[in-house]
């Protein structure tokens, strides 16, 4: 399957060198970065040209402050910068671009409720609706908004990969805060969803794709009970999930935790045969990383 997937990914590269969410869509940072990371990890000659053009797209779209916008129609730095950092980390010649981006990422902070909002929450009895510690700061989807599990995880992966470039910043503190955010949002029986373990006293359930991403971000703390509980949750939920995205993130995660993935790779191939992953670039690229198994770009 991997050969077919590589061919499909290369065939959907836009003429500007980037990738969109699916064939024919405008190039954007998230999909271009993950596609470049996937193709680069292969170390195959047939992918060299695609990698080169994709890398050029990323470099051309980096903002002066080091960040990346969502796509070529936007300007403001976005959560997708973390993906670009991961992709370009594989290129020693682009270390300066990575350093600038990582320094920008360290400075990005999710926000917590202001004093007025906290008073309103208290008065209306909504202060504990989600059982979250609002004082913890991670990374947000939208600049200056609330911290969520997925963007925080992406940021942690990027910053942990680039720690050596960030000695003069408060990276260690931000990483520690980000980890605290993720552990705070864990579902009761392990695993994560977008970031609410409960709402109005009703427990919410974990999503395998997000659980895998969070565990990847916490891979250097693999022995912790929360990680192991969540790993068990991932194994259960992802296997019951009909999705190339969940299976691919799950396989990448299990590989990083030193677990066997042969059976998972078979499930990915079956999903690809059935759905072609709905033509989603991101899933296709993640499946290539999962199936390839070497040069995992998400290894910290």
């Amino acid at each position: 399957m991997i050969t077919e997937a590589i061919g499909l990914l290369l065939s959907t590269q836009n003429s500007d060198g980037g990738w969109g969410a699916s064939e024919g869509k405008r190039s954007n940072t998230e999909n271009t970065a993950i596609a470049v990371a996937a193709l680069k990890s292969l170390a195959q000659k047939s992918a060299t040209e695609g990698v080169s053009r994709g890398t050029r797209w990323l470099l051309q779209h980096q903002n002066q402050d080091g960040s990346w916008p969502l796509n070529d129609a936007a300007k403001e730095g976005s959560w997708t910068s973390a993906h670009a950092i991961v992709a370009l980390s594989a290129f020693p010649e682009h270390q300066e671009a990575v350093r600038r981006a990582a320094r920008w990422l360290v400075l990005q902070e999710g926000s917590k409720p202001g004093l007025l909002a906290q008073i309103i929450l208290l008065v209306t009895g909504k202060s504990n609706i989600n059982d979250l510690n609002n004082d913890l700061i991670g990374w947000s989807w939208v600049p200056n908004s609330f911290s969520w599990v997925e963007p925080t995880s992406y940021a942690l992966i990027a910053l942990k990969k680039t720690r050596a470039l960030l000695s003069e910043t408060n990276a260690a503190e931000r990483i520690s805060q980000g980890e605290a955010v993720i552990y705070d949002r864990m579902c009761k029986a392990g695993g994560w969803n977008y970031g609410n373990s409960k709402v109005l006293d009703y427990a919410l359930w974990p999503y395998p794709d997000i659980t895998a991403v969070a565990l990847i971000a916490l891979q250097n703390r693999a022995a912790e009970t929360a990680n192991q509980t969540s790993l068990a949750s991932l194994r259960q939920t992802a296997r019951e999930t009909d999705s190339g995205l969940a299976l691919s993130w799950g396989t990448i995660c299990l590989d990083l935790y030193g677990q066997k993935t042969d059976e998972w790779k078979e499930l990915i191939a079956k999903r690809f045969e059935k759905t072609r992953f709905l033509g989603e670039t991101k899933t296709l690229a993640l499946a290539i990383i999962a199936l390839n198994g070497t040069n995992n770009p998400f290894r910290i």
Partner: protein
Amino acid sequence: MKFTAAGSLFPALGACEPSRNWQRDAYRKKDSSRVAILPARRYDAPLKEIILKGIKLCGLDVKGKRIVVKPNLVEFDPKGVINTNPAVIEAAVDSFRFLGAASVVVAEGPGHRRDNEYLLSASGLYDVMREHKIRYVDLNSDDVRATPVRSSFTRFKQLYLPETLYHADLLVSMPKLKTHHWAGATLSLKNMFGVIPGTVYGWPKNILHWQGIHESILDINSSLPLPQFAIVDGIVGMEGNGPLQGEPKASGVLIFGDDLVAVDASAARLMMLEPGKIKYLAKAGDFLGNLEREKIEQVGERLDQVQQNFRVIDNFADLKKLTS
């Protein structure tokens, strides 16, 4: 601007804005609006016939039009009834094709999950789409276009909306008939949260909650760039702690109309909720459509014959005090 995880913190919408909050071109109220309520007891009923009848009763002409069908596909719980049933979506697409629509796509931007393949497969919609060769568009990751907001209930001056909406002639909102623990009820207007792209606004689309759920519903609906129609899946709805963890409520109806405010008002009355007490609906009745019972021409089933007592959580007990 600061945002948090909480739901709307400003429930007193309307209390501090005596002047008009919408632009002239956002005003859509007609002298009267027609809403059709048709019986559909089960999902294996002849739904295409029922939907064709509903479309005809509402005088909707789809010939040659490019149609975007927007179901409610937000999350999956094998024990729950969260999403618009695939059988209703299938019948709607069949009906539009039968009536000569130029194209029909199903499009959604799930509010909690990014994983479309999972949601489509688990809900059963994937098999329907494959069998009928229906194209699916993930509105969360669609290309986007900045759109000026035509009302001012939130602080958004513009919203990024999916390009797919700009390449269509009609947007068909197909919600599930459900109560909602932040908004009171989630129907065809609230269903439009799903057109807001997650890649821009995140998952969950919490930034809309912080701006106010009611306020966001109004600004999104006032700013949509194309005409709309609604088909509400009320065959089995949800009561209690909706929109995800409530209990099934068999109601045995489909509700149709081209005035989404009137459709939602009728649906609320059917659920025995007072539409004028659902804040976004009350305000929408000022400019987006007709809320008043006397301005809604009810066809098909008589409302009093199909009304069901939908339970709500304690915070919305006031909605059960019917006045209209």
